[in-house]
C-alpha cells in the first residue's frame, strides 16, 4: 500500500517536472511552471520521507534528515532572496555545484558499501555519478569564482593534452574498479576521487569568463546526468526521469546559447577565444587609433534634443547596478518628447536574457525593449545611440573582418545611427579581448566613467536643459 502511494508520488513528481519545464519555456506561463515543478518536487520529497520503507527495513535518522533539510532550506532560501539580480548567474552556478556535490557524496557512500550482488551496471552508475558529480561541483565553483572576478583564466601549453590524459586515467581506473570484485582499495578510491575533483577544475579553468554561461548550462546538464545515474542505482523513477530530462534539456539549452553567439560548443570548450592573439582585429597596444571624447554636458544636450534615442545596455550596466538610473534617464527623455528604445542583444551581459531581467527589475516597459533584428532595422532612423558598457555585441568586426574570432556573430549595427555615444570605464577591450573599431569611427564619441555615475549626472543635466 505504502509502496504504491510512493510510486504515485514519484509519478506526479515526474509529470510535474515535464509540465513545469514546458511552461517555463513560454513567457506567459513561466512563473507558474516553476511553481508546478516545485510542487512536484515537494510531493516527491515528502513521499520519500514518509513512505520509503523498502522490504520491511526501518527508516533511520529521521531527525537528522529533518535537521539537515531545515538547514539547507534556510541557507538556500536566504541566499536566493538576498542575491542581487546582477549576481544571478553566479548564484545559479553555486546551486548547480551543490547538486553536483550531493550526487558525488551519494556515490562515495555507495562505493564504500559495494556488495557482491551489485551488478557491473550498478558499479558503473556509481562511478559515473561520482565523476560527473565531482566535475560538476568543482567546475561550478570555478565558474562561480570567474563570474565573481576572483579567478582569472589560466592556460598553459599542452593543457588539452593534460586534460585528456586525466580523463583517460579516470576511465581506466573506473574500468579497473568495475572489473575487480568487492571492496575498492583505499588508495585507488582516493586517487579516483582526487582526479575527478581535479578534472572539474582543469576543465573550466582555461575557458574564458565570457563563456561561463555556456559552461554553467553544460555543467547543469552534467548534474542532471549524475542524478539520473543515482536514479538508476536506487531504481527510483523520479530521479531517473528528472535527471535525464534536465540532462537533455540542459544540453539543448547549451547548444541554443552557443547558437545565439554564433559559435560551436567545441569552440567554446577548447577556448580558442580567450587566448587568441592573432588576426588583424587585435590592434597592438599603443597604436589604438584616435577616438573622440564627449563631455557630459554635450551628451545630455544631444540626447535631450534628439528625436529618437536607442539605449544599448551591456555588462557595464550590470556591474555598476545602473539599471534604475538607466530607466530614470529613459523616462525623463520620454517625458521631454524623445522616443526612447532599448536594444537588447541576446547575449549582452553575462547570460542570455541577463539584460531583460535587469531592465525588468527597473520596471522598464516591455514595449520599449527591442530584440536584435527589430533594433537593427531602427538604427538608421536613430539620432543617438547610448551604449552602456557593451562592447563585443556592438563590434563591427563581427560583420566585416573574417579573421576576427567573433566573425559571424550577429551584432547590433549601432554604427548606422547618426551619433554613437559609448560609455565605458576605460579604453580596455571587452571580455572577448578584441579591439573594437567602433570606438574609432567618426560618428562615435566616448563618455568615460562608471555607468551609474554617468547616468545620474546625465539625468540632472537633462533636467536642467
Amino acid at each position, binding site marked *: 500500500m505504502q509502496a504504491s502511494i510512493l510510486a504515485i508520488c514519484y509519478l506526479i513528481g515526474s509529470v510535474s517536472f515535464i509540465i513545469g*519545464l514546458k511552461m*517555463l*519555456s*513560454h*513567457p506567459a506561463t*513561466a*512563473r507558474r511552471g*516553476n511553481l508546478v*515543478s516545485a510542487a512536484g*518536487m515537494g510531493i*516527491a*520529497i515528502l513521499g*520519500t520521507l514518509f513512505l520509503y520503507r523498502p522490504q520491511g*527495513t526501518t*527508516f*533511520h*535518522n*529521521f531527525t*537528522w*534528515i529533518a535537521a*539537515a533539510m531545515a*538547514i*539547507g*532550506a534556510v541557507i*538556500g532560501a536566504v541566499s*536566493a*532572496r538576498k542575491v542581487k539580480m546582477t549576481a*544571478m548567474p553566479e548564484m*545559479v552556478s553555486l*546551486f*548547480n555545484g551543490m*547538486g553536483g*556535490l*550531493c*550526487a558525488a*557524496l*551519494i556515490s562515495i*557512500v555507495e562505493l*564504500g558499501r559495494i556488495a557482491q550482488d551489485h551488478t*557491473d551496471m550498478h558499479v558503473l552508475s556509481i562511478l559515473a555519478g561520482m565523476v560527473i558529480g565531482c566535475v560538476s561541483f568543482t567546475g561550478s565553483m570555478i565558474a562561480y569564482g570567474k563570474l565573481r572576478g576572483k579567478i582569472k583564466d589560466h592556460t598553459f601549453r599542452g593543457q588539452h593534452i593534460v586534460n585528456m590524459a586525466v580523463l583517460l586515467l579516470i576511465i581506466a581506473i573506473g574500468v579497473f574498479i568495475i572489473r575487480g570484485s568487492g571492496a575498492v582499495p583505499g588508495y585507488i578510491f582516493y586517487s579516483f576521487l582526487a582526479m575527478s575533483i581535479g578534472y572539474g577544475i582543469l576543465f573550466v579553468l582555461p575557458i574564458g569568463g565570457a563563456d561561463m554561461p555556456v559552461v554553467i548550462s553544460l555543467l*547543469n546538464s552534467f*548534474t542532471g546526468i549524475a542524478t539520473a545515474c543515482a*536514479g*538508476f542505482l536506487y531504481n*527510483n523513477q523520479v*530521479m*531517473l526521469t*528528472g*535527471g*535525464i*530530462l534536465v540532462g537533455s*534539456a540542459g544540453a*539543448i*539549452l547549451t547548444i*541554443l546559447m552557443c547558437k545565439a553567439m554564433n559559435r560551436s560548443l567545441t569552440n567554446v570548450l577548447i577556448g580558442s577565444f580567450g587566448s587568441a592573439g592573432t588576426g588583424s582585429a587585435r590592434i597592438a597596444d599603443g597604436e589604438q587609433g584616435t577616438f573622440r571624447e564627449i563631455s557630459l554636458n554635450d551628451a545630455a544636450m544631444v540626447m535631450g534634443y534628439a528625436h529618437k534615442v536607442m539605449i544599448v545596455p551591456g555588462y557595464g550596466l550590470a556591474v555598476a547596478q545602473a539599471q534604475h538610473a538607466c530607466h530614470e534617464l529613459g523616462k525623463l527623455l520620454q517625458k521631454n518628447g524623445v522616443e526612447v528604445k532599448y536594444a537588447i542583444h541576446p547575449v549582452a551581459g553575462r547570460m542570455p*536574457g*541577463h539584460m531583460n*531581467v535587469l531592465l525588468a527589475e527597473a*520596471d522598464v*516597459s516591455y514595449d520599449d525593449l527591442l530584440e536584435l533584428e527589430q533594433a537593427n532595422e531602427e538604427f538608421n532612423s536613430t539620432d543617438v545611440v547610448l551604449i552602456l558598457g557593451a562592447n563585443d555585441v556592438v563590434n563591427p568586426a563581427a560583420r566585416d573582418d573574417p579573421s576576427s574570432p567573433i566573425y559571424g556573430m550577429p551584432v547590433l549595427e549601432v554604427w548606422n545611427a547618426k551619433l554613437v555615444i559609448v560609455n565605458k570605464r576605460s579604453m580596455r577591450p571587452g571580455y572577448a579581448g578584441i579591439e573594437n573599431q567602433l570606438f574609432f569611427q567618426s560618428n562615435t564619441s566616448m563618455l568615460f566613467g562608471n555607468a551609474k555615475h554617468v547616468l545620474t549626472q546625465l539625468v540632472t543635466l537633462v533636467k536642467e536643459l
Partner: protein
Amino acid sequence: MQTLLNFIQANLELLYVVILSVFLGIEVISRVPSVLHTPLMSGANAIHGVIIIGSIIVMGEASADNYPVLALGFIAVIVGTINVVGGFVVTDRMLEMFKTGKDTRSKRIKDN
C-alpha cells in the same frame, strides 16, 4: 557482448524511459525564446535537485551508529536542499520581474 544483450533484455523498460525522456527534454526546450534562457537554466537546475531523494535514502538506510556515512549523508542532504530550495526561489525571483514588467504594461494600457 552477451552481457550487454542480457542487460538490455533485463532493463528494457528502463531503456524506454531513458530514451523517451531524452527526446522529451529536447522537444520541451527546443523553441524557447532567448529571453527565457537564464530562468529556464535556473529552473532546470532546481529540478536536478531531485538528487536530494538519493541522499535521504542514504541517510534513511544507514544505521544510527555508522558515523562516516551519517556525516556524508548529512552534508549531502544539506547541499541537496540548498540546490532545490535555492534553485526554485531564485527562478521565481527572476520570473517575478518579468511579471511586474508585464503588469505595468497592462496597467498602462488600461490607464490610456
